């Protein structure tokens, strides 16, 4: 586990929010990440989504090159369980139409009832799940 890094958290949160806010103001899209990535495989307007993901990967690669410790190397659970988790995240976010960015940031900030319900649900269940898994592992 790591220590609290409030300044990094605030700086990163501001950048994430500016990214989503610029998309909202310039395009009128509530462009959450599960929607952008999901649309790459299921929607018709793939071009701008591909550019968005290209920007993500380029900056990710720059961080990986300059500051590799920005990323984790190992996983907390075995890889087959990571695969199940990925399946649940993909399925669940599309079913509920949003993830941490779409519901958690875009929706919550306009006091959308749906987003508040979704966010409290995935945060609550996320805390319970992570705490149970942590207890099993410890």
């Amino acid at each position, binding site marked *: 586990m790591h220590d609290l890094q409030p300044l990094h958290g605030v700086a990163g949160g501001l950048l994430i929010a500016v990214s989503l806010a610029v998309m909202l103001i310039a395009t009128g899209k509530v462009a959450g990440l599960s929607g952008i990535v999901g649309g790459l495989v299921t929607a018709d307007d793939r071009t701008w989504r591909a550019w968005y993901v290209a920007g*993500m990967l380029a900056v990710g690669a720059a961080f990986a090159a300059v500051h590799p410790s920005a990323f984790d190397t190992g996983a907390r659970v075995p890889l087959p369980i990571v695969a199940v*988790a990925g399946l649940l995240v*993909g399925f669940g976010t*599309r079913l509920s139409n949003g993830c941490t960015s779409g519901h958690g940031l875009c929706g919550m900030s306009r006091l959308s009832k749906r987003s508040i319900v979704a966010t409290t649900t995935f945060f609550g269940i996320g805390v319970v799940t*992570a705490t149970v898994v942590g207890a099993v592992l410890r």
Partner: protein
Amino acid sequence: MNVLALICGALFAAGACISGMVRPSKVLGFLDLGGRWDATLLFVMAAALAIHVVAWRIVKGLRAPRFGARYPGPPSQTIDLRLVGGAALFGIGWGIAGYCPGPAVVSLVSGATSSFVFVPAMVIGIVLARRVAP
């Protein structure tokens, strides 16, 4: 529009990397109440929400977006099983792996083995959801 998307994707990834949210260990440090608790995620959310409140204010004062037809109308009020069930499944996956969709994709270029497993599985989940509940 495409250049804008490229820049926004870049900004998102920079934010995810700087805040540590691309590290499942840091996200799980927040979600797992049994370990050494790490509140960084709260600071990320608080800072981002503050910006978004302002963004919605700006949207209110504008007529139409530069690169789109219209701004979203008032949010839907429908709370159904699909919303709550989907969010619950997402919460289980998030609590297990510590990845949500954006940071998982950014991590692909870091060589983190778990993201190579997580992202394809997530894409399968997305496609399945579209099939099962279009």
